[in-house]
């Protein structure tokens, strides 16, 4: 595949041009075909070693990366913080230097500290994909969200994307705002005042205190999980109150545009940010997001490992 992807790492959305993002999306769409085959495996990355370093719990992202690597025939080393020498007091730098000595070609890193993947990239020089860092970014999630919207809507120009919920502590929101805006969509965010970014920190999204305003005519509606583990102190009085005033239900979604998509990066707390009645909402594409996650991660492994070879 003679495509040009001028990046050694995927640490955040910022450095990617719209053209780079199109490259990822087209590559992912082509690779989706492999996933449909009776034997979904190609030898493209045979002999390559991908190390999954998950310092925070994860289900879908970790499995998604593992599946993506295996479809492309790469070896996978799995590391998780629990039961590792981190619990014996080893620091991050020592841990990753030791893992680097095992000879991986690429690190996939999730870490609770914003900037941890940047730190590892700087210290080891090995290509790094950020699989979520603190409340900084989760760029592969944004790229898979783009793929899902592109498949359904055909384009990004002029779309209104509404992201609702815990914007301030969401690395997904952060990456999605940057990515959708880069591709020409308009992004609105809303949620409780304690979870909204101040206007000057909105990264280019429109901030509104009125959830209805964000929903009005939206083509894409994305609900977020409340990142309670990152709050420090309670930012809302009760789950019950949250669901009543900031949760999404059919009545709220009726303000959205005809054929609007409903997305969620997971894991979902049904009954909190999403009313259970939305499970069969016609535009609900949550499982397609998960499926597209594998294709997008395959594309990124391929592009970064080929770029590293060049």
């Amino acid at each position, binding site marked *: 595949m003679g495509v040009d992807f001028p990046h050694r790492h995927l640490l955040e959305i910022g450095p990617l041009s719209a053209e780079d993002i199109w490259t990822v999306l087209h590559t992912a769409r082509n690779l989706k075909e492999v996933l449909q085959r009776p034997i979904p495996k190609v030898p493209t990355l045979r002999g390559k070693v991908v190390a999954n370093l998950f310092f925070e719990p994860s289900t879908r992202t970790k499995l998604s990366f593992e599946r993506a690597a295996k479809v492309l025939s790469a070896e996978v080393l799995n590391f998780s913080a629990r039961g590792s020498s981190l619990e014996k007091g080893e620091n991050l730098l020592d841990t990753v230097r030791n893992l680097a000595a095992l000879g991986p070609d690429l690190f996939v890193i999730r870490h609770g500290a914003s900037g*941890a993947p*940047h730190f590892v990239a700087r210290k080891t020089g090995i290509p790094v994909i950020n699989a979520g860092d603190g409340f900084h970014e989760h760029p592969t999630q944004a790229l898979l969200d783009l793929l899902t919207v592109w498949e359904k809507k055909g384009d990004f120009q002029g779309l209104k994307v509404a992201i609702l919920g815990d914007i301030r502590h969401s*690395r997904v929101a952060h990456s999605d705002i940057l990515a959708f805006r880069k591709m020409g969509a308009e992004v609105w965010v809303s949620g409780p005042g304690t979870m909204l970014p101040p206007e*000057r*920190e909105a*990264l280019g999204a429109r901030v509104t205190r009125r959830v209805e305003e964000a929903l009005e005519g939206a083509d894409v509606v994305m609900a977020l999980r409340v990142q309670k583990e990152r709050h420090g102190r309670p930012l809302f009085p009760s789950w019950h109150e949250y669901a009543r005033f900031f949760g999404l239900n059919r009545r709220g979604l009726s303000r959205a545009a005809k054929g609007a998509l409903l997305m969620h990066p997971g894991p979902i707390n049904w009954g909190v940010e999403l009313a259970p009645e939305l499970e069969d909402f016609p535009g609900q594409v949550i499982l397609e997001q998960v499926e597209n996650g594998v294709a997008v991660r395959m594309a990124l492994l391929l592009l970064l490992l080929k770029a590293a070879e060049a």
Partner: protein
Amino acid sequence: MRLLLRKARILDPSQGLDLEGDILIEGGRIAALDREIPPPEGCEVLEARGLWALPGLIDMHVHLREPGEEWKEDIESGTTAAVAGGFTAVACMPNTRPPNDSPEVTRYILSRAREVGRARVWPVACISKGQAGQELAPFGELQEAGAVALSDDGRPVADSGLMRLALEYAASFELPVISHAEDPGLSAGGQVNEGPVAARLGLKGIPAEAEAVAVFREVRLAALTGTPVHIAHVSTALSVEILRRAKEEGLPVTAETAPHYFTLTEEAVLDYNTHAKVNPPLRTETDREAVRQALAEGVIDAVATDHAPHSPLEKEVEFPAAAFGLIGLETAVPLTLNLVREGLISPLRLAELLSTAPARILKISGGTLKPGSPADVTLVDPELTWVVTEEALHSKSKNSPFLGWEMRGRAVLTLVGGEVRWRLR
């Protein structure tokens, strides 16, 4: 020992002097200062044409890390860095391990400083026992042991009632109180200045209000108690405005800022540069400009470095896990000289900010070249260019955001009580 500094540009705010002349040092004291002094017999003569002779610089805010954190710095390495940076005296903050809340720790610091024999060391003792913000430390005994001021630096005094008591009690001993002005509820969990940079990096912000609210509290407590308060490391335009009003009101409030606040902005942390992680955080260009104007106008009285050494163990880590603080003793002179070159302050004002004002605020000796006073003198070459490298720094720790910068200006000779404690090359 007798030494004649010849044809230096003598800058002494305590006498309002800015003239080219000679300084004669004899018996550890300034013996004479005049336009021309004939060299006495057997006297060493140092040609100082083109150099500035300043009253020995005083850094009123450093962390020497001894006792307890000697892997970062100790009294020997810290005071070596001080004299190499042109400082003849430093005031060391009490957040050591154990903290300096007892006369024993104060005496230990002073005895180590005497043993190593570099810069003078003036211990600042704790406001509260263990810096825990609950009960007052024994101010009287601490003063008797040699402490010159009080501060819970590194940890704000959260309880306004306790701060009031501290000011009232400190007044009995005429001990200056230095406030690390920060509202801990507003700054909790924060890593960098609140604003677009924090948002971009996904780091919790510390709003300017966390400092300003506390500065306002201290200003009102100074008014309420009639006791002077000194505000450490001012970083925001909001604080500057509050201080300006306080001074117009005639309240006994003084303030310092650090070279990083008038040199850098929050942009320095982009790329997750832990060497630029400091508390209070580097702020915006508006704040930087306000701090610079405040130095020029006298709203801020002194420049202090908040020299805060940390080893790679505390800095070569993921950003949120990194310690706050950066070293500053060896870069303060050239960075403050930049303000002179930019036409913001006069050379005399520089001497005021780095020497005379800190001496006055702390009520310690120094800050003057008056004949008869101890010969604490700093000779600066304002034009000498050099590059900040790890090797060039004498501090045990190298956590400077200025590594790789070309600097202009450097101390070439540092005299403490007439003795040469630093001479370049």
